[in-house]
């Protein structure tokens, strides 16, 4: 597909080809720009906020994503039927599928994102490494493309151990194997190849040096269709579990203005190397000596984009839509300025006390934290059933502070205010982290959560109170059952014991 396969023109109706919090995020941005929205839903999402808040909504199939949110033909059909002129893919699902961007182009729909070719190149890790390297971007030391196992074993000698066997296609840690010494390499190669083959239908693998005690820091960029590309500073994303980010912050405490400028310029060069258009993110690994290496580029809006919005004052999703409409960027690099500190906690339906096992069930109660410096992006609702069909993200809790310390203290406050019942969430994990000395003192890398973080540090402070409250409620239930309480004698909607001051007023 040629790089020409990119439409940009004014449009007034957008199909939001996604669900959950990001669908809501996009609908709100469209609403604020006076753009009509078309939502889509699978059987289980009929009552989801993104269906209720969109101007129009269409059913597209059964809960499994393959039969709904990944069904390209169906989505294009809905776009045409509803008269949508553009498509915003959000993140996940079809966001990084070149064929979807291409199908939109073929159907005369503006794809709110980069060209199919840019998606394709950056989606193939080996091609991406080659392309950005030619543009002068430092990459993690590793093997050349197209080597067979024997050649890879030779290459490993030059790269040195420990190293990582990686699949060129896909992501999410699939087809990845760490190798400590040469003896284990051969097995790792065949294993990884098999896994990649089955997961992505592409067994191409390569080697990457493992950088010890490294951080994951990424740069947000914006590129318009007029050749302007700017960077919006960095995000510190080292806190991960199984290659899933759990907490992100902006700015990063290891990045000073000079380093920010260098990383930013490298990120812009990487984007230019594929004539990148729209919002994108370049992920880097940063070693102990603050040397940084290109890891990969995400060719779509990032889950953690809000922290950049809070410190720069920009609205990234609105910018995506403006760029797709063919507008020039309103900001020059020198207009972009970082103020304050922002932290995002991903609130997932999982049990932090039990290996973070996903927790399915129906959400019965939600109370969101509000007030100064607190933003919640969410797509769930009371009555929402957490199923295995979709990712376990319940919401993104984002806090702003004048300093990192104040952002952390505000996050503690917001986590404490947050009420979700019906499923277990990782809120206690976030509370532990906000209290953790290593987190407060920046002493973490990409391995911290998995290897060196434990939930047991913090004892259950309110266990006695919990016992009392459960007992009071149980007692009430007994009373009502055994009719000790004469009906009507008490307002059942607000049953209670009379407290001292009330009795005084009798």
């Amino acid at each position, binding site marked *: 597909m040629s790089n020409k396969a990119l439409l940009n023109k004014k449009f007034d109706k957008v199909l939001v080809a996604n669900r959950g919090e990001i669908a809501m995020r996009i609908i709100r941005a469209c609403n604020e720009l006076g753009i009509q929205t078309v939502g889509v839903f699978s059987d289980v999402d009929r009552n989801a906020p993104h269906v209720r808040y969109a101007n129009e909504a269409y059913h597209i199939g059964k809960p499994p994503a393959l039969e709904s949110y990944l069904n390209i033909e169906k989505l294009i059909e809905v776009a045409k039927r509803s008269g949508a002129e553009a498509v915003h893919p959000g993140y996940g699902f079809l966001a990084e599928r070149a064929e979807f961007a291409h199908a939109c182009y073929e159907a005369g729909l503006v794809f709110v994102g980069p060209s199919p070719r840019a998606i394709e190149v950056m989606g193939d890790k080996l091609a991406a490494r080659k392309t950005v390297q030619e543009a002068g971007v430092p990459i993690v030391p590793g093997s050349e493309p197209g080597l067979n196992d024997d050649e890879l074993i030779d290459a490993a000698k030059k790269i040195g151990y420990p190293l990582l066997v990686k699949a060129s296609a896909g992501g999410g840690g699939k087809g990845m194997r760490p190798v400590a010494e040469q003896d284990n390499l051969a097995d790792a190669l065949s294993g990884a190849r098999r896994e990649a083959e089955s997961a992505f239908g592409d067994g191409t693998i390569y080697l990457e040096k493992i950088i010890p005690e490294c951080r994951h820091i990424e740069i947000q960029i914006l590129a318009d269709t007029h050749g302007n590309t700017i960077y919006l500073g960095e995000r510190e994303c080292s806190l991960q579990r199984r290659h899933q980010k759990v907490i992100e912050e902006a700015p990063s405490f290891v990045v000073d203005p000079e380093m920010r400028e260098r990383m930013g310029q490298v990120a812009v060069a990487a984007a230019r190397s594929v004539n990148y258009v729209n919002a994108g993110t370049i992920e880097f690994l940063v070693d102990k000596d603050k040397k940084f290496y290109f890891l990969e580029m995400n060719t779509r809006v990032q889950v953690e984009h809000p922290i950049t919005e809070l410190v720069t004052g920009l609205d990234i999703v609105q910018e995506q839509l403006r760029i797709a409409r063919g507008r020039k960027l309103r900001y020059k690099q020198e207009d972009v300025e970082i103020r304050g500190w922002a932290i995002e906690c991903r609130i997932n339906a999982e049990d932090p006390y039990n290996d973070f096992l*996903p927790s399915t069930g129906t959400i019965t109660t939600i109370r969101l934290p509000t007030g100064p410096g607190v933003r919640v992006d969410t797509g769930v609702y009371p009555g929402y059933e957490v199923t295995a069909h979709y990712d376990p993200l319940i919401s993104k809790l984002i806090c702003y502070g004048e300093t990192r310390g104040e952002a952390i203290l505000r996050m503690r406050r917001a986590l404490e205010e947050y009420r979700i*019942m019906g499923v277990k969430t990782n*809120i206690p994990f976030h509370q532990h982290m906000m209290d953790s000395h290593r987190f407060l003192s920046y002493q973490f890398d990409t391995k911290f959560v998995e290897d060196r973080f434990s939930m047991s540090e913090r004892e*259950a402070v309110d266990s006695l109170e919990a016992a*009392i*409250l459960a007992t009071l409620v149980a007692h009430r239930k*007994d009373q009502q059952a055994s009719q000790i309480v004469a009906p009507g004698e008490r307002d059942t909607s607000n049953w209670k014991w009379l407290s001292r001051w*009330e009795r005084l007023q009798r």
Partner: protein
Amino acid sequence: MKYISTVGNEEHIIEIDKEGQITVDDQIFAIDFQHLTDGGLLSLLIDNRSLEAIVEERDDHWEVLIHGELYAVDVKDERAYRLAKARGLSTEVTGEASISSPMPGLIVAVRVKEGQEIQKGDQVVILESMKMENELRSPRDGTVTHVYVSPGQSVEKNQILATIGDNR
């Protein structure tokens, strides 16, 4: 009315007799306890200390949400508590423990064989669900008595995957 309420391994004796008062482990507190009309929110003032919480009943216990933490509380009145004790239904695991699937998914790997001795916390099964691989671990030391699943097999929520019995 006297209750014995258990959280984790703490036991508390709680007496509710007078209005506006509660006795916890022989200590008396003044309380003002309110149910809000607003979706299950509770407000407790206990000696003027203020607590907001949500309490929901589960099959065999109460779930209490306070300050972001979820507590599982077992509440028994004196009689029920004595009966339970008599029947030896205390809290620590004895007899056969079964490992069941917390959600629908696909079995990626089985880490144990029948007859194998394992420690509490050892991996038993790897279950893929919600795009993630999840390790199901043994709740106790013991011997694997049965394995009901094999890799590649998809399972329902609450389906029993394996059982762990006492060591011989």
